[in-house]
């Protein structure tokens, strides 16, 4: 057991920003818009740092895929307590089409290279809401997965994960190495304190290209068009259930 945990952090548009669709409908406006670490990734970092503070693991490595700016996101993870960072350089068109499949291939390759015992990711990113990367990474590595984790307990080489599912909570026991994805109630991320922000300056961020990991980042998907959700139309009030059924039939809904 290397005691090493890999945490994936994604740079996304800040949750408070009003998203605007680009005039050419190819995507959303990102230039000059405030970005921050995906909130679920923050929770993932916090969990990893907590495990290190409990001395259950030895090293936390923060990973992010993207252009130069993702280094900011990695630095935030370092300021929260991660030990070092890995910046996987992906830019331009490749970055625009980067999705869960490519990222999970990258993470799988890194996990093998770094001999990680555990990968903790956010359950999904707030920009694409895919909720796929964790699951795909586990599948590629053929590792067990504990997704939507609201509680994680480490015991030697086993993990007890309490998962949030539709019907309630499910508790599973999985063997490490494993992939865990963080859900909202797993923890409350700490504020990066000023001393840690300054210390983070000295921590190392390694640069690596997807090709170095043997990963092809070309996408199998093509975005045809991006639109704003339709404006919500006014509703219609009806007097009786018969009226309701009548109206639904008229609208071709039933």
């Amino acid at each position, binding site marked *: 057991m290397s005691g090493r945990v890999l945490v994936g952090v994604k740079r996304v548009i*800040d*949750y*408070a*920003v*009003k998203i605007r669709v680009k005039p050419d409908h190819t995507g959303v406006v990102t230039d*000059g*818009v*405030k*970005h*921050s670490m995906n*909130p679920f990734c923050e929770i993932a970092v916090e969990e990893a740092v907590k495990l290190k503070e409990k001395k259950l693991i030895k090293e936390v490595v923060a990973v992010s895929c993207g252009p130069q700016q993702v280094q*900011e996101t990695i*630095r*935030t993870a370092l*300021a929260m307590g991660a030990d070092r960072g890995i910046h996987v350089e992906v830019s331009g068109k490749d970055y625009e089409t980067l999705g869960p499949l490519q990222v999970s291939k990258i993470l799988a390759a890194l996990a093998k290279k770094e001999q990680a015992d555990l990968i903790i990711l956010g359950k999904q990113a*707030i920009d694409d*809401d895919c909720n796929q990367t964790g699951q795909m990474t586990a599948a590629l590595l053929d590792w067990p997965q504990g997704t939507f984790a609201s509680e994680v307990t480490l015991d030697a080489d086993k993990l007890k994960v309490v998962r949030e599912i*539709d019907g309630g909570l499910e508790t599973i026991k999985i063997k490490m190495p494993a992939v865990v994805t963080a859900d*909202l109630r797993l923890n409350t991320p700490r*504020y*990066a*304190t*000023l*001393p*840690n*922000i*300054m210390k*983070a*300056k000295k921590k190392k961020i390694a640069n690596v290209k997807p090709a170095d990991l043997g990963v092809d980042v070309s996408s199998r998907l093509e975005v045809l068009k991006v639109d704003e959700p339709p404006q919500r139309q006014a509703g219609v009030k009806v007097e009786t259930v018969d009226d309701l059924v009548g109206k639904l039939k008229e609208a071709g809904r*039933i």
Partner: protein
Amino acid sequence: MALQAKLLRFSLALNRNLHKTVVCNKRHLSEKASSNPKASVSTENTDHVLYTEEHFALKASLRKIIDQEINPYVDKWEEEGQFPAHKIFKILGNAGFLGVNKPVEYGGLGLDFSYSLAVAEELGNINCGGIPMAIGVQSDMATPALARFGSAELKREFLQPTIMGDIVVCLGVSETGAGSDVASIKTKAVRKGDEFVINGGKMWTTNGTQADWMCLLANTSDGPPHKNKSLICLPMNLPGVHIARKIDKIGMRSSDTAEVFFDDVRVPCKNVIGQEGMGFTYQMLQFQEERLWGVANILTTMEKVVQETINYTRQRKIFNQPILHHQVVHFRLAELQTEIELLRSLLHRATALYIKGNDVTKLASMAKLKAGRLARELGDSCLQYWGGMGFTSDVLVSRFYRDSRLMSIGAGADEVMLSIICKYMDTLPKK
């Protein structure tokens, strides 16, 4: 049957989406409150004249604390006339924001003043003036002299816990009979053995009703008024210290301001900061940081007010078009924004010189003078464009109008700033 099945599936899908959004909103409690997401900031990141990546990381972290621990409660605290200083200062102290430019041995970060200013600027995102002012007293107004000139023992007893946020400090300089004329304060500290016996009183003491200690300026000898004063670390729980009243003010309402009396208060002589008799000089030095800090703080708030005014006037219509479309409105806001940028440039220039060890008294005084006057102009102009709504207590612009009026009065009135500038311009009548 089919209808039921379809409705069931539909409601399940709806619930799932609702669940997702509800879950997201729960975490970010102030999503509605934190009004306008950035338009101007991100572009400045790379080529800022004063700030580095660390400054911005610091601001982002502080912003989170403001959004989660402070802004959701501001309206309540404004109404109550007080905010929980010990609680908020402890949160800030834990995160390292109260001792940014203070010595590392006492829990500070030993960074230069540009970092303190980054904190001051970020605090301008708080939706009132009272709380940043109170934080400023704790972090940058009552402690510079102690940090620079105090004995190791005094620093351990007072500076360290203040930086940690464990104790609250207030600054005792102004009196009922002496504000602008600091040299004419009457509070006396008479030496009796190895103690000072203090009699007198202080006025306009921010944090006064909650403070654990006061950085007190008192007359410690009979001599020329600029050479007979000392700064003393005074515990507020000593017998003889009376908090006479909490002052009811038109603005800065969430900050408690006290009138304090001293009735034969005994304090050890070792509580004097630095050299006896140097108090006036030390206080004048403290004022420079206080003034720059105030300017940095109010700049962010002014920008916020302009932005909120743009948002409001964009959606509010008069005569069939948004108020913002009327030229006088968008032109006036452009004028105000221009003045904000000019003031910001002056502030950054003064700071850059200050951290290199220069005396920036003239520039700091100019910046403070301009900040006070611009805030009044801006508050007044923006409030006008809010119409009737601007006159209500529910909006930020009216609170800013009240809070910012203090800028031209406290920490050195406009007229005092003008005197200082004239001194440097050598235009004052010779005695």
